[in-house]
């Protein structure tokens, strides 16, 4: 088995490892490193330790917008967890029912928005919710509910929720498909045994099928978490980099973008941008660690 030098190994691995390292892994570590530096006006970069983080978390000009973005992002995530994933679970449960006709068509249609660009989806909903066009107002009027209509995207109190629901509408196909696949992989005889024992379909679902797909629900949670704390396009397309009204829809992605590139009178800063990116990295890291060390581990133990 011993050969001189495994050239074939190099040949197979080098392209992928090289590109990944140079344009994904290295930039990530370099960004973390850059957060410890600062640029002076004449373009000299010097090491400043944690002072960028101190600025971000304590200088009122920085900490206000940062906590606002983090809190908005958390709400954005909570809405996905409360709306997207339960509806995804329900749709998956319905789709996995035995001898359901047309299941394939439903799946295809409900998954469709997931494939479309977030930018396009943002614009489409902006038009639909626009008071100018009046489509949603007319729709509500059909049920006699037109007094409920407001320019939801324009109001500070409702803009973030509306955007989160648009995002839920678009991405519901992902939890639906993942949960659907997990439900299909449950052996039939298990469900059959429960049925013979006289368990109702409702009881079978909550007591047998849901516990068995808990690992998938965990996976859906962490995918939602990473996706939400990395979101940017929807807010940028609908509300611009300023994430109005009055920063009420600002999330970490838009805050990062503004910090890096600047806006209005504030000049962009690469090192402060790197600092915000590092905070985002830490948030995602904490989420992923929680998932691997707490949720996933307990789930596997539960399964055994």
């Amino acid at each position, binding site marked *: 088995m011993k050969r001189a030098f495994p050239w074939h190994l190099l040949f197979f691995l080098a392209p992928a490892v090289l590109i990944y390292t140079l344009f994904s892994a290295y930039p990530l570590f370099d960004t973390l490193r850059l957060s410890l530096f600062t640029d002076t006006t004449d373009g000299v970069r010097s090491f400043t330790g944690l002072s960028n983080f101190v600025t971000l978390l304590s200088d009122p000009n920085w900490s206000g917008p940062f906590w606002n973005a983090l809190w908005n992002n958390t709400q954005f995530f909570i809405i996905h967890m409360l709306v997207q994933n339960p509806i995804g679970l329900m749709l998956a449960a319905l789709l996995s029912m035995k001898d359901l006709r047309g299941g394939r068509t439903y799946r295809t249609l409900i998954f469709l928005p997931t494939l479309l660009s977030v930018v396009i989806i943002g614009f489409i909903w902006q038009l639909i919710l626009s008071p100018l066009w009046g489509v949603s107002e007319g729709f509500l009027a059909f049920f006699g509910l037109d007094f409920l209509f407001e320019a939801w995207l324009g109001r500070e109190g409702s803009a973030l929720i509306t955007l989160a629901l648009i995002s839920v509408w678009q991405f519901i196909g992902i939890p639906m498909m993942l949960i659907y696949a997990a439900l299909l992989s449950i052996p039939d005889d298990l469900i059959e045994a429960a049925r013979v024992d006289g368990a109702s379909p409702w009881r079978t679902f909550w007591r047998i099928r849901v516990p068995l797909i808990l690992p998938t629900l965990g996976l859906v949670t962490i995918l939602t978490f*990473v996706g939400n704390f990395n979101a940017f396009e929807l807010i940028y397309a609908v509300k611009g980099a300023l994430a109005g009204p009055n920063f009420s829809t600002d999330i970490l992605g838009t805050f990062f973008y503004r910090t890096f590139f600047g806006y209005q009178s504030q000049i962009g800063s690469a090192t402060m941008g790197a600092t915000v990116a590092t905070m985002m990295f830490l948030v995602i890291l904490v989420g992923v660690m929680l998932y691997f060390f707490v949720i996933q581990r307990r789930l596997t133990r539960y399964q055994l």
Partner: protein
Amino acid sequence: MNGPSHSLSSKALVHLTLLGYSLIALFPILLVIINSFKSRRAIFMDPLALPGPDSFSLDGYAKVLEESNFLLFFGNSLLVTLVPLFLVMLFGAMAAWALSEYRFRGNRLLALFLAMGIMVPIRLGTVSILEIMVSLNLVNTQMALILVYTAQGLPLAILILTEFVGQVPEELKEAARCEGVSEYRLFFQIILPLIRPAVATVAIFTMVPIWNDLWFPLILAPGPSTQTIQLGVQQFIGQYATDWNSVLSALSLAVLPVLVLYAFLSQHLIRGLTSGAVK
């Protein structure tokens, strides 16, 4: 169990729910496409009506094609999606093969290093990526996007393909090796054709996020000659926000290629998605 009448009505309820949700998913997209074929007056007068003989109009499309470089944007998007797609599948399959077939020191560590990219979004490295591209003189080139998208797609591709390469029967590889087939020929002529279905799944997972991305085109290649379709549409709509015909037509043009592709590939895609998810 409940009587047949009950199960019939519960069945109807299931279909009603699924149908209702399908409509919710489809309605906004259809509404935009339908109205893009109507005159400005008809768009506002009766948004829900289909275009008729007196409301039909292609003004919006004419304007989009005239005033923006739509075909150029489309070509750019195609280029920066298809080249990374090819590279991700080829390099991803090669790396997956090496990781699952050969035992070498650091194998698991390398696999872990590559898998890191699945959980940590590549966007977080944007500050440094931009600096690298500036120093390589690649800002406002498609090359910048191609390199970044290839790096972005590789981790998930390698993870999925490693799983599949591992399922290739041992006897097959041994038989080939006994006949003196080189490791290179073994991979390209025997293994690669065998894992083709998995490669198709990977292709979809890789392609959709790249085609739809706005972040990197905005940052690395915002110039007029390198704009992708997402960026082009975003800027066009910003410019013509009050011209509803044009806005609706631009949106429809951006959506239609994906709809057509989905119509042809949806069964394959969903099969790939569900089989890829079962573990």
